[in-house]
């Protein structure tokens, strides 16, 4: 119990520190990304994705960890769009919301409880709707779906993401004024 608490606090602290220092929590950066005019967050995100993807799968192949892949069901696109609309209205996501509270952004305290309320509303409403939305489920493992070795997916995906990072980094500066 105490280990869980300390571990949670430590990971959250480090994550909040990194997000804040890199400027990922800033409202103009998030809205700039959604307006497709500021790509710093995209570059940060894709760098993290490529790097951890390689680490995860190397460690997985060595038998050191087992990934739990999320299956595809109707909740993913429907919930995803609802989440996206909320993110656009707020200008930050759940993780950066926590860090913003620490930075003294008072509205994020309200958003903190709003987010929990949203999950509570989900718990109340989803019982009847779930049966309609979730039964159709596809395995989350694309390499199994396509019947190929996962490295045939990881390498092209990594190259694609690296290509996107390279292109937006060349074309768009992180410091130009948008708003």
């Amino acid at each position: 119990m105490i280990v869980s608490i300390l571990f949670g606090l430590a990971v959250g602290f480090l994550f909040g520190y990194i997000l804040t220092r890199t400027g990922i929590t800033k409202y103009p950066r998030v809205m700039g990304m959604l307006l497709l005019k500021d790509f710093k967050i995209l570059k940060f995100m894709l760098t993290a994705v490529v790097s951890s993807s390689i680490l995860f799968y190397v460690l997985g192949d060595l038998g050191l960890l087992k990934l739990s892949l999320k299956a595809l069901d109707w909740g993913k696109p429907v919930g995803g769009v609802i989440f996206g609309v909320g993110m656009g209205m707020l200008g930050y996501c759940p993780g950066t919301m926590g860090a913003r509270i620490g930075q003294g952004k008072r509205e994020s305290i309200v958003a903190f409880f709003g987010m929990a309320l949203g999950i509570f509303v989900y718990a109340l409403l989803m019982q009847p709707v779930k049966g309609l939305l979730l039964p159709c489920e596809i395995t989350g493992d694309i390499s199994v779906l396509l019947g190929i070795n996962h490295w045939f997916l990881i390498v092209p995906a990594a190259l694609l993401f690296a290509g996107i990072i390279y292109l937006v980094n060349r074309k768009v500066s992180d410091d130009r004024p948008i708003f």
Partner: protein
Amino acid sequence: MDNSKEWHWFKGGILTSLLSVATYFIFAAIAERNYPFGITAGFGYIAGMFGTLFEGLRENPVIKRYAEKPDAFIEFFLLIGLIGGGYTAAKASKTFSPEHFPAVWEKYHGKSVVKRYLFVIAGSILLGFGAALSSGCTTGNILQGWAHLSLGSIVAGASFFAGGIVTARILYPNVGGGY
């Protein structure tokens, strides 16, 4: 917005990936299950604890899951850690700047506190509902899910952007920073 003290996106991205891979291991050791780190379940823990106050909701599967699963308990403390990390980072980089709501919002949508807080409340409820329905937020579905190349997360993450981009366009139809 003063961006001169921000870390480079590459540094932030690599550090985030190391944190996310390391966390996966420790999570597996503590929660005795391979479980990627995320934020949503931390908010779910708050919703779950609130739900158990009501006799009729104790058997609700969503409430029960969030109130009892060890990962939700850890992620709740991760949330608290995020606040501390955000505070420490803002102080360390001398960018601690308390505010009610973002200056960019005020410039385009006026000084009305009521208007902004209506958006914050509605946005955060949608954020919570969407994250619960798509089983993860930006951290769980993109930083982790995209790195695992899991199909459900790829669809959810793309839907985050779809919803967010449309909302941002509606809120800020005419901003600068042309190409």
